[in-house]
């Protein structure tokens, strides 16, 4: 029973992380048809924003020393600012470009950000301790669950709830959903294009910061490539969920997280190293059966 509970919590927290990543991609894709390949590097940037630039293995934390009620908002702001800056400086010029051009531009941006971090911090992972008390286990129905996992799940659920409320109940949320369906039509009804897009980028940036915080707390390190693992799965999740569908991206994120954890628990010992290969195999099976994704959005036009 306790083992099963442990698996459930593992699945929910890992799935939640993937879901948040997929959401960050899906939001921007919805309004701009842009796949932001720089997202993983934004995650890393947010984490490194807490440290002074140095090539030492022991990080000199500056912002990271702030108490949590200051650190979290500051980091969310950093994420939002970086994301919005990238929109204004780079992506705005590509508003009407073809999708291939936009994808390469975002890939290039990620490349630049990554190498900027490399230049300032070197490729050596730095140790960083944030809220070590979160590593302690908490007793839930007899199972000992790391506190951080519980917090991750709570954060994910809270983010999803807030975002859903925002999208369904506020004027700006409504405008964003309308713009995602038909951008030009929305503009003709007075929806301000720039504001909607900036908002999508801001939210996406905050999600990146949140993921960064969770990863940094979990692993105790700051590593240039730390966003890449989550984002690899997050991208796959957006495809499986159905490009353009927000609930699809979230659901797919949880599904892949669950699959990963289940494989980890049920595979025979020597095959455990190949757990990732099994997860990818499962992804391939899903794509063979439903190439358009699990939740292809209703406004799907003739697709070739």
């Amino acid at each position, binding site marked *: 029973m306790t083992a099963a509970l442990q698996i459930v919590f593992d699945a929910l927290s890992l799935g939640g992380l993937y879901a948040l990543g997929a959401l960050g991609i899906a939001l921007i894709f919805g309004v701009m048809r842009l796949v932001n390949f720089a997202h993983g590097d934004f995650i890393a940037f947010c984490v490194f924003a807490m440290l002074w630039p140095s090539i030492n293995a022991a990080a000199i934390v500056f912002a990271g020393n702030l108490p949590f009620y200051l650190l979290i908002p500051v980091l969310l702001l950093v994420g939002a600012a970086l994301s919005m800056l990238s929109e204004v400086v780079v992506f705005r010029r590509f508003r009407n470009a073809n999708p291939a051009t936009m994808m390469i531009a975002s890939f290039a941006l990620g490349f630049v950000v990554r190498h900027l971090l490399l230049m300032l911090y070197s490729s050596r992972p730095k140790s960083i301790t944030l809220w070590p008390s979160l590593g302690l286990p908490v007793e839930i129905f007899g199972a000992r669950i790391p506190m951080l996992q519980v917090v991750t799940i709570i954060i994910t659920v809270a983010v999803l709830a807030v975002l859903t409320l925002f999208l369904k109940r506020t004027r700006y949320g409504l405008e964003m959903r309308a713009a995602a369906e038909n951008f030009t039509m929305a503009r003709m009804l007075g929806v301000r*294009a720039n504001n909607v897009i900036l908002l999508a980028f801001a939210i996406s940036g905050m999600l990146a910061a949140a993921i960064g915080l969770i990863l940094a707390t979990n692993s105790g390190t700051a590593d240039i490539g730390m966003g890449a693992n989550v984002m690899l799965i997050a991208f796959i999740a957006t495809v499986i969920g159905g490009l353009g569908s927000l609930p699809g991206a979230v659901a797919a994120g949880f599904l892949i997280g669950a699959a990963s954890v289940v494989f980890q628990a049920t595979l025979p010992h020597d095959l455990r190293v190949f757990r990732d290969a099994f997860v990818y195999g499962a992804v391939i099976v899903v794509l063979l059966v439903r190439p358009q994704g699990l939740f292809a959005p209703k406004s799907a036009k003739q697709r070739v």
Partner: protein
Amino acid sequence: MTLLAVDDVTVRYGRLTALRGITLAITEGEVLFVTGPNGAGKSTLLNAIAGVVPPISGAITLDGANVTGASPEQIARLGFSLVPEGRNVFAGLTIEENLKVGAGMRIDKHKVAGDLDFVYREFPMLAERRHTAAGMLSGGQQQMLVIGRALMASPRLMAIDEPSLGLAPKIIDQVYDILMRLRAQRTLTLLIVEQSSTRAMMTGGRMILMRGGRIVLEGDARDMVKDKALKQAYFGFGDH
């Protein structure tokens, strides 16, 4: 009072010239029909006024303000609402949400609820399904929805591109009924692209005939339509 003035406007799509030196004026309260064969530039004219395509040359003035090259959202805020061809409902949003999108930019927020009631009264079939996703509606219902949605923006000039396309005659009757009633009740100025000359004749008003990106004829709708020789020369495909 001239509500909209288009002055020698030329629009190009790459190397294709879609509008050549178009000049026209719309007075407040009138109904102006735009007709002509396919490819004449009728939709482009509406898109240019809406700010979707910027003119290469010329000027567009809306209610005295120069809107040449302005963005669609700015032009919408000045009192212009375009209902494009093809009933572009926001399929994933409900009817009520579709209607509310148009009202978002309005400054007179206290009037929005009243306008919503008005739309539901004029279009009872929308009121019945206000929480249904717009993608599930029939063609006629969607046409009503997009007109209602444009109304929620409280425009002074409403342009509609091909309101009868793909609809049964009885539904088209209803659509025009409502349009004329709205015009009377809300002092709405109408600019309608309509391939059916019969409709124009039945409704009355002014008409311009476009061909190859130019305005080739202008006049009273009824008079123009009755002149058979003109019809044959320019319409080619006979009566609708």
